[in-house]
């Protein structure tokens, strides 16, 4: 089974019930209530179905209810596996071509309309939505918060790593999963709040109402005065040949399976994109016991925080810059990926190609805001604000502030007398700032007393080491006067408690103390399973991932609050101040094949996944028909699929450029409800709005 039984951070859920189900007639086992997609992945199923065009295999792509690539037939009905909870006895079948509509011909049981109303509808229950809803409710406004997931917190629930930022403002040093729980508890304590979890908003209509697909079984209209759109972001796809093969999916989808569902869907991965998402995905993969052959980025510079990248490199993961994916190939699923360096115009240099045997390619090419409802609401003239990633892609820490600020500005528009604390705006700006300068650090010499050594040298918004230190002897360099400043050790008053080592989100602080002339004791953080005992020898690396020595482990201590081990090593005096990493991935697992092996077919990259339309097809159509309007691509069915152009719309500008057009001069596509498909019976609440009606409807497939 591809299950993660032991994870260094996430506790295995207790009390889950094992159930039997079948996939194409084969009996499988999974956990009741888990996402069907994860149950299938845990059973080793990569190809869920075959597309109507060319019978191309399809598997997980977003694992987020957005893209529909994971559609299967569940008890006779086409369903997205990633939002279908597994139930005992489910008959799951792969979909080949178009699904058949079951002959469910019993008489119609009658419709029921349901109208809810509130002052403010908050779309999305992630960090910004939860913060905004709480702020609005505190001001006495009635709030409905709707979110598509059963568990609130948005992407926080996937974030098993410690947060940057500051402890006081945004839970720095705490893990996203724990932050989500706290925000939700806070919101649930407030009156005037109705939470509709597992209930996506599917449309915002001209008559100032929103349609909510409540619990994916019922349909309610919400009458609102104002709208907060905090619906987060979706992952961008990337154009490379083979980008549609099962096994190519978003880093967020990967985190969903690995961190939320504790499924190990991959053995070896290649990651595309070196932003924070890609870097963190690599770390999460290693924590889940999955090999990472490397991270590629077409740009010449790491996109994410340097401290993140350094951390990954120290685990033994190479980062290939100015490099692109030229082919992902395999029979029915990913079997190998080929990368090559690019020239100054980002064209691949095929003679530099290297092929890796991987079963998975994670796409972490950035995020695009889910701001459709905001744009729609503004076009209709409604009172609306956006917050979090739906407003601007940034860290979750700034999203929490962003949500509160958005709530206050909305309350102001609604006539409430509120003042927005100027310091909040400043904090939000600092928290979402891009990395600042790099400030190199001088050498540190070990003495008889403990000394912290800092390995972060790029300004990022982060300061928990300064607040956690019991003697307050870690300070920020007074350069900018905010938490972008880098920490330094001020006094001589270090007790060696290692609180800073354990809390640092970048794993970039060590403590050193001289033992004798030859040896120094070094305390290092470790966020993996520490299945070794004192006396073991582990490979220590420097900041840049260079091997220093195999050092003897003296002691291991678990810091429960931070779910982090602090390991004490005996290190040679020369290497001690430089030791910061412990290699977890051995070099053999990241080697390419001796010879590259690939076919280069760039026109075959899929742009529209729903309808399987390639780059080549679009370019040809644009040229033949004089297209100046994205809407005309609908003749190729581009954007007409189940996802509603969520994936392809982000890719189209590059394709249009390839066809010789200036994307800025091309008429954009039109947005229309619904944002997600809803069965007709559910839209009218056949048999009543209550649970029983829904349950009856979903029986489906009877003669």
């Amino acid at each position, binding site marked *: 089974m591809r299950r993660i039984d032991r994870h260094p951070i996430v506790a295995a859920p207790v009390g889950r019930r094992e159930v039997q189900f079948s996939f194409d007639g084969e009996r499988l086992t999974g956990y009741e209530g888990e996402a069907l997609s994860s149950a299938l992945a845990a059973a080793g199923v990569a190809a869920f179905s075959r597309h109507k065009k060319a019978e191309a295999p399809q598997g997980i792509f977003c694992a987020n209810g957005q893209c529909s690539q994971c559609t299967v037939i569940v008890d006779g009905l086409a369903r997205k596996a990633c939002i279908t909870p597994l139930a005992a006895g489910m008959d799951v079948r792969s979909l080949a071509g178009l699904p058949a*509509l079951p002959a469910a011909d019993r008489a119609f049981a009658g419709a029921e309309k349901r109208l809810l109303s509130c002052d403010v509808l908050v779309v999305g229950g992630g960090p910004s939505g939860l913060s905004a809803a709480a702020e609005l409710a505190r001001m006495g406004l009635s709030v409905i918060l709707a979110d598509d997931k059963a568990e609130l917190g948005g992407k926080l629930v996937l974030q098993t790593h410690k947060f940057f930022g500051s402890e006081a403002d945004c839970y720095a040093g705490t893990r996203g999963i724990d932050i989500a729980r706290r925000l939700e508890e806070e919101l649930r304590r407030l009156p005037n709040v109705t939470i509709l979890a597992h209930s996506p908003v599917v449309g915002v209509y001209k008559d100032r109402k929103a349609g909510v697909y409540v619990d994916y079984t019922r349909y309610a209209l919400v009458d609102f005065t104002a709208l907060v759109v905090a619906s987060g972001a979706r992952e961008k796809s990337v154009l490379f040949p083979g980008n549609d093969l099962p096994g190519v999916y978003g880093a967020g989808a990967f985190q969903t399976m690995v961190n939320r569902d504790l499924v190990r869907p991959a053995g070896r991965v290649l990651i595309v994109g070196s932003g924070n998402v890609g870097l963190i995905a690599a770390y999460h993969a290693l924590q889940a016991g999955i090999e990472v052959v490397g991270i590629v980025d077409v740009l010449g510079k790491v996109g994410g925080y340097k401290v993140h990248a350094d951390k990954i490199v120290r685990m033994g993961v190479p980062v290939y810059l100015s490099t692109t994916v030229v082919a992902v190939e395999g029979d029915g699923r990913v079997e190998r990926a080929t990368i090559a360096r690019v020239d100054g115009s980002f064209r691949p240099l095929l003679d530099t190609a290297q092929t890796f045997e991987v079963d998975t390619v994670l796409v972490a090419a950035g995020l695009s805001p889910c701001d459709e409802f905001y744009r729609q609401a503004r076009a209709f003239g409604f009172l609306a604000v956006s917050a979090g990633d739906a407003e601007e892609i940034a860290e979750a820490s700034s999203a929490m502030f962003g949500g509160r600020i958005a709530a206050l500005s909305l309350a102001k528009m609604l006539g409430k007398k509120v003042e927005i604390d100027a310091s909040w705006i400043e904090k939000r700006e600092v928290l979402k700032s891009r990395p600042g300068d790099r400030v190199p650090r001088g050498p540190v010499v070990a003495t008889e007393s403990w000394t912290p050594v800092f390995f972060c040298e790029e300004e990022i918004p982060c300061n928990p080491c300064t607040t956690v230190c019991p003697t307050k002897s870690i300070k920020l360099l007074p350069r900018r006067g905010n938490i972008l400043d880098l920490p330094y050790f001020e006094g001589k008053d270090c007790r060696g408690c290692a609180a800073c080592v354990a809390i640092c989100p970048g794993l970039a602080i060590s403590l050193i103390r001289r033992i004798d002339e030859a040896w120094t004791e070094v305390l290092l953080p470790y966020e993996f399973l520490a299945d070794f005992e004192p006396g073991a020898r582990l490979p220590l690396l420097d900041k840049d991932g260079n091997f220093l020595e195999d050092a003897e482990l003296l002691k291991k201590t678990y810091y429960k609050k931070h779910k982090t081990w602090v390991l004490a090593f005996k290190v040679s005096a020369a290497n001690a101040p430089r030791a910061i990493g412990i290699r977890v991935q051995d070099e053999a697992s990241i080697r390419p094949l001796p010879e590259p092996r690939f076919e280069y077919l760039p026109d075959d990259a899929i742009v529209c996944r729903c309808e399987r339309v390639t780059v080549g097809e679009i370019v040809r159509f644009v040229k033949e028909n004089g297209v100046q*309007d994205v809407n005309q691509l609908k003749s190729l069915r581009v954007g007409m699929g189940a996802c509603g152009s969520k994936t392809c719309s982000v890719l189209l500008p590059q394709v249009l450029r390839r066809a010789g057009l200036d994307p800025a001069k091309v008429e954009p596509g039109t947005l229309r409800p619904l944002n997600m498909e809803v069965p007709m019976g559910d839209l009218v609440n056949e048999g009543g709005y209550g649970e029983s009606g829904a349950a009856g409807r979903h029986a489906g497939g009877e003669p």
Partner: protein
Amino acid sequence: MRSYDIVIAGAGSVGVPLSYYCAKKGFKVAVVEKEASWGRGQNRAAIGGIRATHSDPAKIRVCRESIDIVSRMKEEHGLDVEWRSGGYLFVAYDEEREASFRKLLKIQKDSGLDIDWVGPDRVAELVPGINREALRGGTFSPGDGYASTLMTATAFHKLAMDAGVDFFFGEEIGAFTQEGGRIVSLRTRHEEFGAALFVNAAGADAAELAELAGIELPIHPDCHEAGVTEPVERFMEPMVVDIRSDSESGNYYFYQAVTGQIVFCITPKPQVWGKDKDSTSTFLPLCVRRMLELYPRLRNLKVRRIWRGMYPMTPDGFPIVGYPRESDNFLQAVGMCGQGFMLGPGLGRILAECLAAGGSATKPEGSTEYGFLFEELTPYRSFEGMELLK
């Protein structure tokens, strides 16, 4: 100034085919359109039905041409427009409806249409699972069908481009220059176009355009909403039309496209006048309820997208085709009452034929036999009565 034989205002369901057929007849043609591309007005909002089964000779004739053109688009030009000859089925669940359908049937058969009464068993064969309670039967016309409005417009645009038609997109018409009861030129923000003949094919904006030339047309658009589902394997053939009304709505209709989706539409009650193209919250609960009452099997079918478009209505529900007294070189092909897509191809071919045969304000049909059509659809009729099969 740019000079043409014919300048057509509007690159929609009517204008694009017309431009193609005119160019084929040897005219030098330009199409001026305010939208960024072709078919961006009501063409894209139309759901795609094409039927010859109307209640009057002109529309019957025009739509027979349309069916002939659209159904042969692929074999003739290699352009797929997703045509399917699935037929039209008007269902009757009460005596009154049955009687009126049967009465019409006589006129339709007399016009040579392939249409007949079918009993409940045949209806249930055509639409398996349809609600049979009180079902009396219906009229079925197997030669009618449906096509993709988008691909049909794209096909005509391609044919027109290849035939030498010049398209000017993003050009809103601002003014006409007139001299002695004739239009000399029309102006947009960037261009001025001179021509011997101007054609109003501006769909929902036709009345405003005519007004620029001092012509009053009784055209008032009303809004209709429509939707499309996920695609599924084919399970029904015809376009199903239920012309009953209830307290919230008038008729509604739906069919399964070649690509497998159910496309559906309803007439709201009361009618919503105006040009609002933004979707409302009332459409889905209303239209879906009526569809499920008729056809419960659709309950598990997922709705994918909805939109809203206009029916450019005339007082009697029939189009206006002809020359106004105020400008004898300003041909009107307007007021399609929501049937521009099915009328457009046939009307384009017929009008081009008339023009090539010397048609003009004094004798619109020229040397052709289409006089009856201009007589029926003249702008100067009484506009009394109402289309029976709107």
